[in-house]
């Protein structure tokens, strides 16, 4: 099975595994991928946080954003865009981190679709993400 861009799609779970608001980690090849459903739409992104590599499956959703449990960074699961760069400062007297440490790329997104009760993910990531 292939998506419209020619990426090969692999079955990863049943549609019933991804009810509204659900997300789960699946492994395709050697890649851990986070799949889920939000607002009726499916998403698939690399499970590794682009900031420091934490498992995004340990985070939680806030609207369309996945919130990383490690440093609180938020990424839109449909666009991959970094939406919120959390400060480490718990108090005003703390000094902010160096910008080089704080910076992050976008989420790596993958094509995802469902057919006949199965969810499929493509290994080829979105070059725009």
């Amino acid at each position, binding site marked *: 099975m292939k998506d419209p861009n020619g990426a090969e799609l692999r079955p990863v779970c049943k549609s019933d595994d991804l009810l509204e608001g659900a997300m789960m980690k699946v492994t395709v090849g050697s890649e851990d991928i986070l799949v889920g459903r939000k607002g009726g739409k499916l998403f698939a992104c690399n499970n590794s946080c682009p900031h420091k590599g*934490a498992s995004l499956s340990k985070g939680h959703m806030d609207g369309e954003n996945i919130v990383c449990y490690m440093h609180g960074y938020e990424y839109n699961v449909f666009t991959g865009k970094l939406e919120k760069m959390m400060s480490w400062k*718990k108090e005003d*007297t*703390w000094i902010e981190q160096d910008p*080089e*440490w704080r910076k992050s790329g976008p989420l790596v997104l993958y094509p995802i679709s469902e057919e006949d009760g199965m969810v499929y993910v493509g290994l080829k990531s979105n070059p725009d993400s």
Partner: protein
Amino acid sequence: MTKGTVPNIVAIEVLKKNGVNVEKLKELLTKGVGAEFTTYYYYTILRMHCTGLDGEGIKEIVEDARIEDRNHFEAMVPRLYELGGSLPRDIRKFADQAGCPDAYLPDNWEDINSILKVLLEAEQCAIRSWGEVCDMTAGKDPRTYDIAQRIMQEEVEHEAWFIELLSKRPSGHFRRKFAGQSPHTGAQGSLIHL
């Protein structure tokens, strides 16, 4: 075999067969040891600012955490190289890629609780960081897992100590036999000189 030719490395081959993403693991290890090394540096500054009667009371416990975090760096770095990884040649890049924030001295350091809060934040990030390595290697890479879980045990102890000092919640803490004893990681890694 000619000089410079690296033969097949069975110790890495078996990890891949076990499903370990070795490149991802090396990345996490580099970030983890980066955090340990920077924490060791910043804890030196924090310890120097544990002053007065209150500061004297926590100076030794901060020193234990400081030295043990350095030991964590030394325990895991040889494993990183075994896996084919390496430390960045530039220490600035090393610090920038570290998995946890720099434990900067807060502006109100005269309040000893402000130092304890920074110490606690650093330890909690380290627990999450080594937890990632443990999760990735459990049942697949016993050598990396063994080192990571030993580090994890000491990070959990450090967190408990600092929570006790901030909140009075008992931690089970009693002094180490000597500063930075590292009861769990002390025998790990060829760089440790205990």
